[in-house]
């Protein structure tokens, strides 16, 4: 019984990880229709940022790295957007292939820069230990996820930049007609979306491996969260991440890890039968 109760916080913490890795995607995928397969490699860039910062920040590198990784991954995203993706707007499926090529190149670059073996990022000593089954580092990730969601929500609904972003997302032409520089908004969106991937990468160093293949472990899950939540829907992503986390946690508890993954996939396919556009849908009268 205790074990069953334990799975609840475990499920929530899995949900928090899913949310962190998917949050950036709700921007780039949801708002701009860009299917960024290199999102996983931006996560990886965040993790390596924490690794590199250890040289002078020591065990506090994880904390110091949060803003730095946001900037590093964000800049990488910005470069990608400027150099390539901006030629692809309106061809979302093509961006998938393009960014997949980018992700291959970035993986190989990481292998050459940092070596093929995993590197180690030491967790701050104050994150050791925990309450019951929940370690402090999991709590930290949950807090980080909540903080990121609040920040994103505030940005989207309380700032003029956020309002412009929503306007472009809902109707690009109309927004442009209103005098919004959509290109500028796209850059900003991509910077923030990629930057959030960097933050996720730093958080993941607490619980997982840091190596060139890091991104590939998370990318499919991240997409599923966004798809289940509905494109560009912040609350959709939150609910989907938590639901999938809990489902994963209990499915794995009663069966095994392999079967749990299959159950999650099947659940999403079944769910899309009921709601083909995800949990929340952006209403549009546009004829497709």
């Amino acid at each position, binding site marked *: 019984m205790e074990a069953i109760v334990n799975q609840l916080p475990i499920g929530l913490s899995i949900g928090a990880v899913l949310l962190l890795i998917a949050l950036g995607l709700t921007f780039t995928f949801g708002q701009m229709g860009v299917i960024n397969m290199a999102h996983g490699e931006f996560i990886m860039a965040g993790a390596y940022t924490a690794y590199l910062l250890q040289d002078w920040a020591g065990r506090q590198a994880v904390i110091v790295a949060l803003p730095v990784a946001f900037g590093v991954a964000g800049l990488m995203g910005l470069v990608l957007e400027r150099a390539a993706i901006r030629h692809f707007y309106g*061809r*979302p499926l093509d961006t998938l292939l393009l960014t997949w090529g980018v992700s291959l190149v970035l993986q*190989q*670059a990481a292998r050459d820069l940092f070596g093929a073996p995993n590197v180690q990022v030491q967790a701050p000593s104050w994150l050791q230990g925990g309450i019951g089954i929940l370690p402090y580092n999991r709590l930290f990730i949950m807090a980080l996820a909540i903080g990121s969601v609040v920040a994103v929500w505030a940005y989207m609904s309380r700032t003029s930049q956020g309002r412009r972003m929503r306007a472009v997302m809902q109707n690009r032409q109309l927004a*442009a007609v209103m005098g919004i520089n959509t290109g500028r908004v796209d850059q900003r969106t991509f910077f923030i979306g990629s930057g959030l991937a960097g933050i996720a990468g730093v958080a993941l160093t607490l619980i997982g491996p840091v190596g060139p293949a890091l991104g590939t472990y998370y990318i499919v899950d991240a997409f599923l969260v966004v798809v289940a939540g509905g494109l560009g829907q912040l609350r959709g992503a939150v609910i989907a991440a938590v639901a999938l986390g809990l489902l994963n946690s209990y499915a794995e508890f009663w069966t095994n890890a392999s079967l749990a993954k299959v159950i999650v996939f099947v659940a999403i396919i079944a769910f899309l039968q009921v709601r*083909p556009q995800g949990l929340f849908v952006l209403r549009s009268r546009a004829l497709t």
Partner: protein
Amino acid sequence: MTATVRGERDTVGLAPPGPGRPWHARLLGPAAFTAIAVLALVVAPLALEPFRLGLLAKYLCYAIVALGIGLAWGQGGMLTLGQGVFFGLGGYAMGMYLKLHDAGGHLPDFMVWSGVEKLPPLWVPFGNPVFAIAFAVAGPVLLALLLGTLVFRQRVRGAYFAILTQALAAATVILLVGQQGLTGGTNGLTNFFDLFGQDLAADETQRGLYLVVAAVLGLLYLVARQLVRSRFGRLLVAIRDGEDRVRFLGYDPATVKTVTFAVSAGMAGLAGALFVPVVGIISPALLGVVPSLELVVAVAVGGRFSLAGAVLGAVVMGYAKTSFSEQFADGWLYLQGALFILVMTLAPKGLLGLAARARDLLPSRRRA
């Protein structure tokens, strides 16, 4: 928004033959097809050493899958990232037959070391080669019909369909790996000896298999081309370019898409069945997210809007991967990645689109 229309919406490549085109333009296609067929069926088997011919046979198997992707994605706009699943179904059906045949009434080797004591009922019918080959095509077709009916009725499309099929590929791999006693786990099925009494290791057998693969590809290409040029094909393109509009006209896009998806799945299944004796292995690694994506990329590189482009892309990318990795064992991923990025950015309609544009460019210069 002006840029958004570019690429996705307009058709390029081979326009349907019409009375308006001059006779030499109409003959160009059949002439090229014949030339390539002669090259593939006569010249290649004579000119290439057995190892390279085997590799070419492998690329052609992929080209069959690519043909299906060209149909579903290029013509129908359904970006399927799970084509490896159908390929794998066909491959496993064939692999199971070969394994049972080699075992000759005993248990296949991997079952012995996986602790299976009795042949699982699922395996029993695959002892029959006719059933195995029929299943290699019918299995994927039925699965695609089921999936297509579920998904397209609900109007799941675009990126959702892509991610969904990708998840399907990921889930299938995990399932296959987890059932080691049934499927050989990560190892997959390998170590085959004999196909219909022919020694699979012999060069002649491999040459024969190559010819079969090439002939099947040629045949399927003609069938697919006929399909595209038919009324059904025009409807398919119309759905790609404006699904709602087609629905308003009284057609049922879901049926058209489902049928196309099933045809492409059947092609992938057949390709998988041919692949197994050619390459000698089928394993989950061949049907996961990455190989499925690689095939789609190949189609994009070749030129998705024409079937010939899809075939060309599969062969070019297969060849590029082999030779890049042979030449630069350490850094070939850079080259492969760079090739995608550059083709996608510079030639969004692929190599064939590029060729078509170069052709268009010349006379227009002359006029100017």
